[in-house]
């Protein structure tokens, strides 16, 4: 089980990113728990200045814009 945090104030791209993490995880057979972080202070404390940001197992891997599906898979492996 991998713990993934998606940082974003609830914009459309943030939702798309969270959905993409789930669907890509299902494709490669990795179990994930996706947590959406919408609190501005929490987003800033994680070091994310452009949303959506993605953190996998406590490590920030992406910030700003929709990630590419291939990248999402590589983070989850």
């Amino acid at each position, binding site marked *: 089980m991998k713990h993934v945090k998606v940082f974003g*104030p609830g914009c459309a791209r943030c939702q798309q990113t969270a959905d993409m993490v789930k669907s890509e995880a299902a494709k490669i057979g990795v179990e994930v728990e996706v947590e959406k972080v919408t609190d*501005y*202070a929490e987003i800033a404390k*994680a070091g*994310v*200045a452009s*949303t959506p940001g993605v953190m996998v197992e406590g490590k920030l891997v992406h910030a700003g814009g929709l990630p590419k*599906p291939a990248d999402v898979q590589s983070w989850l492996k």
Partner: protein
Amino acid sequence: MSEISTSPAPRPGFVWALRSALGLAVWVAAYAALDPVSKWLVSFLPLAHDGALYAAAAFFIYEVPKVLLLLAIVVFGIGVIRTFFSVERTRAFLAGKNEFAGNVGAASLGIVTPFCSCSAVPMFLGFVSAGVPLGVTFSFLIASPMINEVALGLLLALVGWKVAATYLVFGLSVAIVAGWIIGRLHLESWLEPWVQSLRAAPVELPDRKITASDRVDAGLDAVKDIVGKVWLWVVAGIAVGAFIHGYVPNGVLAAIMGRDAWWSVPAAVAIGVPMYSNAAGIIPVVEALLEKGAALGTVLAFMMSVTALSLPEMIILRKVLSVRLIAVFAGTVAVGILAVGTLFNVLF
């Protein structure tokens, strides 16, 4: 680990060059065909050739494809340029920069750093908590929505590169000066209390290798995304512009929006600030206004007060800024636009 990856196999390096050359050739061919094809189409109109309706229709038929083509190529170019920048890298560059040099850097980076309006608050917090001075942060925040790729592309397409360059210089000056003034006022205590105490450790994102092919893809994505979103606005704007082109007599606007009317810039800002529209809808109108004798400084001041200050953005920013600070922000930007607009009318 078994590979069930659905991502395509990596393309050889030269494919992107081939694709770009092919795309560019198609674009050039389409652009070259604009004049003959639109003339051919217009010849079918059952209208007298010297009428106002004919002038308006001919304008519309030629301008719509031309503007969309030019917009697409500018948006593509900026989409590619933006792959070289990121908000995180910009922040690292600006942290601890002194005033003025920092304002200049922030305003310039505001143009090329990818940034969406729903990111305004995270970006603001991210900058301030990482030690970027408040005034420098504001320079970025002002430049980013005001000088956008759609506005730049449309000005280039409709009114020419000189006006587009003027707009760029105009916008940069406003962002630099307004940010610098806000910095000099030392208003850090006007931030919401929880923002003042927020400290974030700098974070290193893993370096992701971006290939030339990725950059071309990013440019194409930008075209699909932005042109797909604004094309209707562009068509509507050109329709209004076509009406002005066909029906408003030449020079009639010189009296009310010309450079000799000293009050035209304050009036343009006063009307523009509460208005909020898409840059895509407003620029075809700008072109028609200029053609009928309105002064450049007045028209640019109007356009910038419409795009730079928007109520939705202020409401979002209220989460981190006090009302007083928002008022100073809006006031400084409005005065900056006013000053630069007036200066332009005097100088040119």
